[in-house]
C-alpha cells in the first residue's frame, strides 16, 4: 500500500460509508472516483435522516405541538451549523435552497427584480468566466436576455487558469455583478478570489462565488472571501440530495426583493397585497427541505469532526500522487493545471484519441466509476477543442490504492482499444 504524508485514516473513514462496500460487475468492489458529481453519504447522515422521520417529523414554524417545535428546532439548528461551518456573521444570512443551481438563480433573479442601486438593466454588465458550470452560466444568460444587460467573461489560459490579464476591461464601472467559481468542477483549478474581489469592489460590483466544488473540500470562510453571495450544494459534501445553500450579506438580503412566493416567506397576506418575512425566510417559500437540512447539518458535523484542513491536506497529497501517476500513462493529457498547486482533487484528461465514453465504459467494467462528457462545462471543452474529457475526482475516503487502480484501468483501456 502506498503511504503518503498527510493522508487521513481512510480505513476508518470508509467504514462510515455503506456504499463504498458495494460490489459491481460480478463482485468487483467499487472504486468511486465521481465525487465532483456527487459524494457518498456517511452512516451518520443517513441516521440523522431516519431519526428525523421516525421521531420528529412535522412541518416547521408556527406549530404549537411538540413535533412541530422539535422539527423547527432541528431545521433551524441545521442553519446554525451551516452558518458556523462557513463562518457567517449571522445565521439569518443562510438561506436553504434545493441545490446550488437554485441558489445561483436566486441571486440572478433578486438582481433582475431589484430597484436601484442593485438593478440590472441594459446600461449594466454582468461578468462570469469561461470555466463556469452551466448552473453559473445559464442563469446569467437568462438575466441578460431578460434585462438587456451585457454578459461578459474571463477566458482561460492554456494551462487551465483564469486569464485575468484584461481584468480592468472585463470588470468596469458598468459591472453590477461578478459571479465565478471558486474551484472549477472540470479542471480542479482554484481561482484567485482576492484579485477578482478587489477589482469588483473598486467599481462597486457585487460578487457571487460558486463554492459548490469548494465547500466539500476546504475551509470555507465567507468573511475571508469578502464576497456578497456564496452558493453551494449539499449532495457534494456528504449531505442528502435536495438541499443547497445561499449565503448572502444581511443588508443585501434585506434590500433585495423575494423570488419565489408562498407560505413561510410572508409576514402578512391579504388578497390585495402581502408583506414579506425578514431573511432568510423571505427567500424560503413553501415547506422547506426539512429532513435534507437536518441531513446537511449532520454532514457538516461529520466533516468538522474530521477537520476541513485535514481533508484538504489529504486531497492535496492524493492529487500530487495522482498527477504524477497519470502523467506516466502514455498519451494521457491533463486538461487543466498539471501540478497539484492551487488545484482541487478533480482531474480531467484525454487519452490519445480514445473517446472518453469508451474510456469510461471500460473503466466501469473494472468497477471504476469516473465521469465522462463535458461535465456541465461545455465552454471549457470548446476552448480546448475537445468533445469531452474523462474526469476522476477524489474525496476524503479516496486512497492511493484507488489512484493505482485507475492507472491500471487506463492501461487496460489503452490495450483494449490499442
Amino acid at each position, binding site marked *: 500500500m502506498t503511504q503518503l504524508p498527510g493522508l487521513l485514516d481512510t480505513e476508518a473513514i470508509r467504514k462510515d460509508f455503506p456504499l463504498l462496500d458495494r460490489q459491481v460487475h460480478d463482485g468487483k468492489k467499487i472504486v468511486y472516483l465521481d465525487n465532483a458529481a456527487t459524494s457518498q453519504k456517511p452512516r451518520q447522515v443517513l441516521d440523522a435522516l431516519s431519526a428525523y422521520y421516525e421521531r420528529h417529523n412535522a412541518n416547521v414554524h408556527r406549530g404549537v405541538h411538540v413535533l412541530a417545535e422539535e422539527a423547527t428546532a432541528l431545521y433551524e439548528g441545521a442553519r446554525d451549523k451551516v452558518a458556523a461551518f462557513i463562518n457567517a456573521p449571522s445565521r439569518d444570512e443562510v438561506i436553504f435552497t434545493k441545490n446550488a443551481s437554485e441558489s445561483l438563480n436566486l441571486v440572478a433573479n433578486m438582481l433582475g427584480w431589484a430597484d436601484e442601486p442593485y438593478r440590472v438593466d441594459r446600461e449594466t454588465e454582468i461578468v462570469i468566466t469561461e470555466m463556469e458550470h452551466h448552473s453559473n452560466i445559464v442563469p446569467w444568460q437568462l438575466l441578460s436576455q431578460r434585462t438587456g444587460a451585457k454578459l461578459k467573461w474571463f477566458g482561460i489560459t492554456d494551462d487551465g487558469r483564469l486569464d485575468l490579464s484584461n481584468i480592468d476591461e472585463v470588470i468596469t464601472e458598468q459591472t453590477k455583478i461578478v459571479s465565478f467559481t471558486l474551484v472549477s468542477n472540470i479542471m480542479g483549478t482554484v481561482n484567485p478570489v482576492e484579485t477578482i474581489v478587489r477589482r469588483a469592489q473598486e467599481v462597486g460590483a457585487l460578487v457571487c462565488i460558486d463554492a459548490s466544488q469548494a465547500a466539500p473540500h476546504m475551509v470555507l470562510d465567507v468573511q475571508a472571501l469578502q464576497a456578497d453571495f456564496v452558493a453551494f450544494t449539499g449532495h457534494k459534501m456528504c449531505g442528502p440530495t435536495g438541499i443547497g445553500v445561499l449565503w448572502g450579506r444581511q443588508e443585501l438580503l434585506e434590500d433585495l426583493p423575494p423570488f419565489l412566493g408562498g407560505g413561510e416567506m410572508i409576514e402578512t397576506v391579504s388578497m390585495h397585497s402581502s408583506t414579506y418575512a425578514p431573511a432568510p425566510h423571505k427567500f424560503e417559500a413553501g415547506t422547506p427541505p426539512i429532513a435534507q437540512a437536518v441531513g446537511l447539518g449532520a454532514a457538516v458535523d461529520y466533516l468538522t469532526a474530521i477537520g476541513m484542513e485535514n481533508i484538504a491536506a489529504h486531497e492535496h497529497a492524493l492529487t500530487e500522487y495522482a498527477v504524477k501517476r497519470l502523467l506516466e500513462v502514455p498519451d494521457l493529457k491533463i486538461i487543466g493545471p498539471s501540478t497539484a498547486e492551487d488545484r482541487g482533487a478533480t482531474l480531467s484528461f484525454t487519452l490519445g484519441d480514445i*473517446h*472518453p*465514453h*469508451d474510456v469510461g*465504459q*471500460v473503466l466501469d467494467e473494472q468497477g471504476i466509476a469516473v465521469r*465522462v*462528457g*463535458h461535465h456541465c462545462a461545455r465552454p471549457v*471543452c470548446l476552448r480546448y477543442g475537445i*468533445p*469531452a474529457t474523462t474526469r476522476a475526482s477524489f474525496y476524503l475516503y479516496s486512497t492511493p490504492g484507488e489512484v493505482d487502480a485507475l492507472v491500471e484501468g487506463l492501461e487496460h483501456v489503452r490495450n*483494449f*482499444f490499442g
Partner: protein
Amino acid sequence: MYQDVILDHYKHPHGRGLRDGDAEVHHVNPTCGDEITLRVRLDGTTIEDVSYEGQGCSISQASASVLNDLLVGKELGEAQRIQETFLALMQSKGQVEPDDAMEEVLEDAVAFAGVSKYPARVKCALLSWMAWKDATAKALSQEAKTA
C-alpha cells in the same frame, strides 16, 4: 458490450471518408459531443453510396461502418426495413436476443444488441442511422423538386 465485431469496425471502419453525394447532413449528439457528417448518393431507388466523416466513441464510429456495409447497394425499401430493425433492437433495453431471422437482416449489426442495455450509449449507436435517414429524405425531396 464491446463485441470483437464492434472493435473491428471501430479500428478498421468501412467506407469512411466523404465522397460525392446527392445530399449531406451534419448531426451532433449534444450530450457527448459525437458528430457525424454524412452523404447519400442515390441511383433511382438504389443506394449507391453512403460516405461519412466524424468523431465520436467506438460505438458511434463502428455503427457508421456497419451502416455503410449494410445499406450500400440496397433498394430504399429494403434499407428502411434494416434501419427499422436496428432501431427496434437498440430500443430493446437488452430484452431482445437476436434470432436467426434478425441476424439475416442485420448481419454484423446484431453485435450491437449488448449496447441496448446501456441507455447512455444507445444514442451513440443510433447517431449515423438517424443521419442516414435524414440525408435520404433530403436527397429524395431534392430529386422530387428537380424532377
